């Protein structure tokens, strides 16, 4: 059976995920070393140690994401996170930066390494490079591949793969998207913050319309009864040739619930639910639904939890590109 990998932005969310039937939890430290570096989110070392101990007592594994790209002169924070993950007995670390991977391989050869989606390894040659140099055991695949492409990669690399089953659709090659830093100055790659809440604002546009902004840039206009996506640059509505459209991605959430058997048949090892920034109620609901689906092949709609309120198979189905 495919492993169910679930997000936890807080110890409470981790407990909720364990209780809802997660096989594995992934989380990060409360600093720039992970790609969800938001205020009030993530774990201190004390919380991490206690949470891992709790998860292990329930037979649940914990993966720690140290998956941002250190700036020059700041690598010590990433090294500390690796030391802490080792001390806290993490089951694996999820890494993206070549320098961080190299350090982890040399200092903690026995600590299991997964390749983060932030490394954007979308082909067998890239995966082989990371396997040969850093002995990665699993690759989290970018959200830009079809099921056929995933199957082909698994056949060629022989590595464990983890794919996104629920959450947002990431149309850009991850780990090297500079749209948010272009607008805000804060970097998803180095600082772990994409479209930070501190830079998001909602303003009245006219009587019936609200506009959402990131920094000084308008990313959408929507009516008061319209479900609008959180204003990240890749989910914005733009004007091209005087036509307004969701140029990069529609306001939809990824939901692979209906194609779980196809992912399993392709040889996928683990299903990832996205959303370390989401509430513990979201975690409990989505984890329970996927647990039930995996156990019984039945499922109920998660449409209300999906981003923007409607769902897509994303790149898994032909035609998305």
């Amino acid at each position, binding site marked *: 059976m495919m492993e169910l990998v679930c997000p936890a932005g807080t110890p409470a969310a981790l407990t909720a995920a364990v209780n809802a039937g997660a096989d594995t939890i992934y989380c990060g430290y409360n600093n720039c070393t992970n790609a969800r570096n938001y205020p009030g989110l993530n774990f201190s070392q004390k919380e991490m140690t206690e949470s891992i101990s709790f998860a292990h007592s329930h037979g649940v594994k914990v993966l720690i994401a140290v998956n941002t*790209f*250190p*700036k*020059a*002169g*700041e*690598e010590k924070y990433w090294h500390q996170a690796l030391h802490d993950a080792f001390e806290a007995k993490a089951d694996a670390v999820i890494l993206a*930066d*070549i*320098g*961080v991977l*190299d*350090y982890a391989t040399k200092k903690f050869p026995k600590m299991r390494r997964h390749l983060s989606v932030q*490394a*954007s*390894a*979308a*082909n*067998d*040659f*890239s995966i*082989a*490079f990371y396997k*040969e*140099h850093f002995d990665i055991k699993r690759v989290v695949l*970018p959200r*830009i*591949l079809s099921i056929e492409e995933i199957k082909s990669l698994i056949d060629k690399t022989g590595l464990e793969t983890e794919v996104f089953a629920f959450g947002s659709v990431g*149309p*850009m*090659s991850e*780990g*090297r*998207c*500079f*749209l948010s830093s*272009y*607008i805000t*100055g804060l*970097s998803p*790659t*180095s600082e772990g913050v994409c479209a930070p809440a501190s830079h998001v604002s909602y303003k009245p546009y006219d009587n019936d319309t609200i*506009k959402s902004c990131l920094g000084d*840039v*308008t990313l*959408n*206009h929507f009516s008061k009864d319209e479900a609008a996506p959180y204003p990240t640059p*890749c989910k*914005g509505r*733009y*004007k*091209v*040739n005087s*036509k*307004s459209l969701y*140029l*990069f991605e529609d306001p939809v959430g990824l939901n692979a619930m209906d194609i779980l058997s196809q992912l399993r048949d392709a040889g996928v090892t683990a299903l990832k639910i996205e959303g370390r920034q989401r509430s513990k109620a979201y975690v409990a609901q989505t984890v329970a639904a996927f647990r039930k689906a995996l156990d019984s092949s039945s499922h109920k709609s998660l449409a209300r939890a999906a981003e923007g309120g409607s769902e897509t198979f994303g*790149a898994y189905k032909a*035609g998305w*590109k």
Partner: protein
Amino acid sequence: MKKHKLTLGPLFFNWNADTRRDFYYRIADESLFDTVYLGEVVCSKREPFYASVMPSIYDRLLASGKNVVVSTLALVSSEADLAHIKNCIEQNTLIEANDVACLQALGGKTKHVIGPFINVFNESTLSFLVKNGAYRIVFPAEIPFSSIKKLASNKNTEFEVQVFGKSPLAIAARCYHARASGIKKHECKIICASDEEGLKVSSLDNQELFSVNGTQVLSHGYTVLLNELPLLQKAGVTHFRLSPQTVDMPAVCRIYRDVLDSKTVPSEAIIKLKKITKDTPYINGFFHGVAGMEWVHIPHS
């Protein structure tokens, strides 16, 4: 002191064969560039449409004394993309790797350039890649000067920074040019060729933001690091990249050459450059560690 080199980066846009030939012949015959990067970086589907003119462009550049490096795809996500990279490696001696797949294909043996689409933000990554055969590092668009300063002091490696042209911000498997036209990528008909400097993308409040170039997103404004050239030179940057735009590139090259050689002060150079680039705004925010789309004014002493 070693002469600082000017390079012409790979052409991101999908210009047709005739336009390319005319453009590069002029670069060969009339420009002061030391090195020219050729090769398709954005989409492997484009190349068959202009491949016929590339050998003569390559030869003409070499004959005029330019160093030629072949840049490779920034995102490898299909068999066709991989085949494209392997073909580049078989045919050429100097390669710019822009996806880790290319490093694997090079096998750590051949000396190569690391392009701006492979993240080099810190010392350990730099050191690993140099040991793996990189002799020159082109920094990613987002890197601030505070980091460049710490990395470029490494004497045994060459460092390159893009100092002119639209900044590459993102690359996707999806084609936005096709999407904006309501068609799918597999039936795109190379629609990206209709916009010689990309498709203009504005906010709903009419603020010009991006240029979409097939699967790539670029800044709307031109990155212009003229005020910053002396700082980069002092920090150990050896190569300065101008990215091809639909402006008089040999003339732009002369302006940068004169600043590198201290024949023109940056403030005068910017006035000259403005006459060439017309309405396109300038940006330099990433260099200064602020929003990339901003222009940070540096007062001259």
